[in-house]
């Protein structure tokens, strides 16, 4: 597919181009800052945009603002936001903004080449992928919703992985469960959280995330460990 990259660091930009071209994608444009990206998207119609967050001139949240803007203008355009640090607040803004699939991952994840390329594929295919670190942060925000307290520790773990945008199959593999029991857990979660049973795929993730966001919860012990020690799709 055709991918547009916007990243101010030359090393990383070139690395990303090399990596994506190596895995059979085409890079339609590589930008060092946000200027001209919107026009390029209009003209080239890429299948996916990869944006850095901190870029010139202010090095704060340019990438997030650009992502929100692009998603508002092109609801069908998948956007992957890569960042040196992930922030729950940025994720919340992306979730509550307009548009469809998006990804929000740490730059560190690029080092796991195969998994990163796989994630790029899933986002382009309409899935929402959140970095486990963001999910952990979302889970620590406490809210006043008692419904989260109904979940068992196991169900919370499943919900956390679900929020990372994984399929039932992947959740089963990651948590060493059978697919049947994952489905059972998810049904229970959706019942307890009073969510619509028909949600599936990306919409299902968004529903779960939106819920975590609005409710907040004391994190499950698993989600509280340092993310790099957790069994996620991104650990080595």
């Amino acid at each position, binding site marked *: 597919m055709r991918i547009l990259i916007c990243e101010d660091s030359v090393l990383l930009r070139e690395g990303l181009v090399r990596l994506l071209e190596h895995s059979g994608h085409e890079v339609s444009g590589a930008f060092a800052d946000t200027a001209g990206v919107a026009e390029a998207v209009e003209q080239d119609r890429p299948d996916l945009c990869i944006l850095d967050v901190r870029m010139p001139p202010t*090095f704060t949240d340019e990438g997030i603002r650009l992502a929100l803007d692009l998603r508002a203008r092109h609801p069908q355009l998948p956007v992957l936001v890569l960042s040196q*640090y992930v*922030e729950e607040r940025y994720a919340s803004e992306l979730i509550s903004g307009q548009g469809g699939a998006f990804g929000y991952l*740490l730059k*560190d994840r690029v080092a796991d080449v195969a998994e990163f390329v796989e994630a790029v594929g899933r986002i382009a295919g309409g899935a929402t992928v959140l970095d486990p*670190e963001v999910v952990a942060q979302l889970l620590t*925000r406490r809210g006043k919703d008692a419904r989260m307290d109904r979940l068992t520790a196991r169900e919370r773990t499943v919900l956390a992985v679900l929020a990372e945008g994984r399929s039932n199959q992947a959740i089963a593999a990651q948590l060493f469960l059978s697919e049947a029991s994952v489905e059972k857990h998810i049904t229970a979660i959706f019942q307890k959280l009073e969510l619509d049973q028909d949600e599936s795929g990306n919409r299902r993730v968004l529903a779960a995330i939106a819920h975590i966001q609005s409710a907040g919860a004391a994190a499950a*012990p698993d989600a509280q460990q340092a993310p790099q020690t957790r069994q996620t799709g991104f650990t080595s």
Partner: protein
Amino acid sequence: MSSEKWAGAPTAPTAGYPQAAQPPHTQQAPQAQPPQTQQTMQAPQAQAPQAQAPQAQAPQAQAPQAQAPQTQQTQARPPRRIALTMLHLAALGLLGWAFFVSAFALLGLGLGLTLVFGIGLLFLVALVYVLFGTAWFETERVDGLYRLGIPALRAVPQRTPGFAGFLRMMWAQLGDGRMWQSIASFTVATFLGLFFLICAQNLVWGAAAAILKLTGGNVAYHPNTGLLLAPFITELPWFAFALVAILCAASMVGLALLHRVLTVWIARAGAEADQAQQLQEAARLSEQQRVGAVRAADVERTRLERDLHDGVQPRLVSVGMTLGLAQQQIDSDPEGAKALISEAHTSTKAAITELRQLARGIHPSVLEDRGLDAALSALAGRSHVPVSLDVRLEGRCSREAETAVYFVIAESLTNAAKHSRASEARVTVRLRDGGTLWARVEDNGVGGARVVPGGGLDGITNRVLAAGGTFRLDSPLGGPTSLEVSVPCAS
């Protein structure tokens, strides 16, 4: 979450930062620097005609009057003000002695019992409170009577925690010049009050005697008569007594005017001395802040260097070595080289993670563009001790305040993870009225946290000092630990 382990609603922290120094009363430009009055200020033009009036009435009062800035509240009209002053004098003449009696009683008890038991200390502390209370009352009384716009007397704040700090505060209060000036003013007013009462008595008796003599009443001397000329009451004519009454009435007015001159003079001198003291205090504080900022930066630099030197650097060196080995082996032992490369890959990722956390610790950019609340999410998410966040902030504070509080919370959580063996921590952040950013970090760990020079808590205290805030650590052995910090929101 076991809620009974935690204290209830957060209590108001004891704010210890000084108010801004009062602008000095300058004779040259009273308009430019209106003194901060406790009452509401009126427009300066309103007083201009009023301010001239008393001078015609009372030439003695010219000196203070000339100094009085024209921006004060409207004073009571002179006759009413003199009447009020007379009331004050009468009241002080009657009741002012209670202060002297209690002060000397406490002093005697305190000194006497300190030699016998330590109980005397209690009396001495009570004495300091009585002294301060009286001085405060006097300041307010004079300010209220003459509308001088002088700032209220403030107690010396406690600078160091604990009982020793309390005693130090008491001692400093005893050495507070402005308090003693107010006490002097009170003493003067009390003696004037005594004379005033004597005059009042003579006025009443003199007038009564004159009227009785005029009407041919029967007057005779009685030893209890409180009249100056009482022994000669049968010989002297009526106008002698009328003269006594008139002289006494005049002295009463005179005493009221004298009271004004003396108390205003003392109050002004006190306020000026107080300003000088406040300026000194402000200078001392800003010096403390500067030292705090410099030290905080030093401590952080040292730690940063150590983190880089002990953590990331050796990791990268080992990655280089592993890759070098793999390069040598790649032809002779491709399988071994693969394993080495995989190892280097893992180490590299670990180094990346470490660098990321290090860099984020130095300066979380989200703090600037989304504020403290947003920045705390990642802190809580990364903490090894499960954290519950309770943040309620409307709007933003200054960058200094937010940064200081952010690092205090970060450091406290790091400490909790390293030393406390806590199973949960709680972070509460509020914006208090009065524009104070207040935060509390609690954990249910083993306690016993102390401030060690160069340690994490030392860094916290320096940061908070640099931001002009206060900080309180409560960590008994056996826990729980709670750390509270207050920083002025807009610095």
